[in-house]
């Protein structure tokens, strides 16, 4: 190599500075880097403040909490980058599990049939969201708000009319329970860490989502559809198909989480899930997704979920007065987002 010939001059020479800045700026301008720095900051804070945060056995619990948010934050982030919202994402998770549970309980058939039926119906809800959005030309905020209320009512009314109460019946004695539980709600004990299978789902979804967004044609379509839909359409991007696909991705992940809830808790109350849609959106925004669409990162959204999980449980691990829980959560989230945007701004100013 010719490294000796091109040895860098003393620090401060123009050539060296330009080179260094461009690499640093390149790294820092990635949307997930700010979130990562935020996550490290939150980690250090609780690492110092909470003694139990330092022990290894708490890791599994934090990862579990983060993964149940992350499984949904990944598709929600993709959808937001594609320029849309899904307010039905929280209750749709429960709809998935209720469908499988009530279907199999009422007919007395193998749970795997319910799992498949639930997947089909959940994907149908996602398709309907995207299709309605396309046909009505209403903002997705409104369309999915409608779906949110519809599903909330359906969850309650159907559960009550089939099982006679607002709690779904216990499915643990129905055939197929053990194998399905193995698939959707398994835990492994590794040393003192209890790892839930949702963590695996979360990591795989993050990897797939990140690959899809940054390495494939579809990723370009998503970014284009969210950035400027008319312009994207003009250059031949299938905007409608992309958006319907994104809503169905949200539904698919909702189904996955719904199956986990069902096989992990066996019975579910029909009113659950409300409010979680905002947590998914919060995780995506903390992770660097713009509320206006066209920009963001899947890895960032997963780090956002981790920040949320660490903060929510960190307050308990630190033993702080729980009356302040929501306040701490709010401060932490705003701070993490501020760190993120500051890093972004610094990077783009360079």
């Amino acid at each position, binding site marked *: 190599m010719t490294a000796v010939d091109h040895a860098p001059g003393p620090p401060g020479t123009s050539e060296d500075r330009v080179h260094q800045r461009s690499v640093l700026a390149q790294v820092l301008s990635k949307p997930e880097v700010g979130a990562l720095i935020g996550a490290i900051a939150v980690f250090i804070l609780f690492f110092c403040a909470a003694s139990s945060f330092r022990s290894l056995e708490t890791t599994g619990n934090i990862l579990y909490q983060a993964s*149940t948010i992350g499984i949904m934050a990944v598709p929600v982030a993709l959808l937001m980058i594609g320029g849309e919202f899904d307010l039905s994402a929280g209750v749709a998770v429960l709809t998935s599990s209720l469908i499988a549970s009530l279907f199999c309980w009422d007919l007395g058939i193998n749970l795997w049939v319910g799992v498949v039926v639930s997947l089909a119906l959940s994907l149908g809800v996602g398709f309907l969201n995207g299709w309605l959005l396309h046909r009505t030309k209403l903002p997705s905020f409104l369309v999915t708000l409608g779906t949110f209320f519809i599903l909330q009512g359906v969850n309650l009314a159907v559960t009550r009319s089939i099982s006679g109460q607002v709690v779904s019946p216990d499915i643990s004695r129905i055939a197929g329970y053990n194998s399905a539980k193995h698939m959707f709600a398994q835990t492994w004990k590794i040393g003192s860490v209890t790892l839930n299978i949702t963590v695996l789902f979360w990591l795989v979804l993050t990897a797939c989502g990140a690959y899809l967004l940054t390495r494939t044609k579809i990723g370009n379509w998503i970014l284009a559809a969210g950035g400027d839909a008319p312009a994207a359409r003009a250059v031949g991007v299938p905007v409608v198909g992309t958006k319907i696909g994104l809503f169905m991705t949200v539904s698919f992940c909702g189904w996955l989480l719904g199956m986990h809830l069902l096989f992990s808790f066996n019975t579910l109350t029909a009113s659950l899930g409300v409010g979680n849609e905002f947590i998914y959106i919060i995780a995506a925004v903390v992770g660097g997704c713009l509320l206006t669409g066209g920009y963001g990162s899947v890895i960032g959204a997963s780090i956002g979920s981790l920040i949320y999980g660490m903060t929510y449980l960190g307050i308990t691990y630190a033993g702080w007065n729980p009356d302040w829980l929501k306040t701490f959560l709010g401060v932490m989230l705003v701070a993490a987002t501020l760190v993120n945007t500051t890093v972004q701004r610094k990077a783009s100013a360079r």
Partner: protein
Amino acid sequence: MKGTTMKKNRSTRKVLATSAAILTAVSLAACSSGGKAKGTSSDTAGNAGVASTPRVTVAMVTHSAPGDVFWDMVRKGAEAAAKKDNVKLQYSADPDATKQAALVQAATDKKVNGIAVTLANPKAMASAVASAEKAGIPVVGLNSGQQYMAQDNLLGFFGQDDGVAGEEVGKKLKASGAQHPLCVMHEQGNIGLQARCAGIKKYVPGTVNIYVNGQDPTSVQSGITAKLQQDKSIDYVVSLNAGVTTTAVKSIKEAGSKAKLVSFDTSADVVKAIQDGTVDFAVDQQPWLQGYLAVDSLWLYLTNGDTIGGGSPTLTGPSFVDKSNVNAVAKYAANGTR
């Protein structure tokens, strides 16, 4: 080319047909014992024939959130009484006090024959209750706000005092040597839950509280697990809702804690857990009975001028369900009425 496409189509169809057949076969073969028991009536409690008195309309207006297990039981009790008493029951609910007051006003405007109302937020309800009474409609209270019975001129009141229930639990915990119980609140800012935890703390000063998001079972699970990991000296977990109780079982196991579990309110799962010994005991305020008595008392007043309680609140709890009496409760719990 055409040939291969057709062949491909045919083979796709074949695969589809086969998988459909397998699916059907699996479904038929798998008819299992865990599903709905066929041919059994799910709700037989209070099934005592129908009164021959004239049909009257009673409105029940509660502060329940949609889909709440507890309030489902209250409603079932009210429905059972209505059926027996030849009463047309109009149930409505809203957790927002001003909206609940509007629902009471709407019932008054409809000139119903009687109103049963919860007073979780007594001040917001006072004027609507007064307006109903002014219109000559008898009003009974249930579940919460018993101290306002005289002030609101209620005909009767059926419920449990949350503070008293908490104190009773506190006494029981103290007697069994509890030092450091954990009181799990599933709703931040709910006065009833605060009163329960405060009641426990009165007798066991080492009581600590945490908040969990009751709308998300994973958040409940990891929240309780975190607290148990952080504070190993916790010897009792007190859950304030039946759904949280069943989730807390998982948390205690995951955290490797030796803490015992105590529950407010019962459900089929909690009753089973008491039989198993996973849950020590449950505090029961008999929600089904609250709904039943509220409607029944209005019917008794309308048809015979009776007042249950004779001007004082009628307490439906706290009673305790533990290993000694759980089997008696179990068969009703399976129906969703205890």
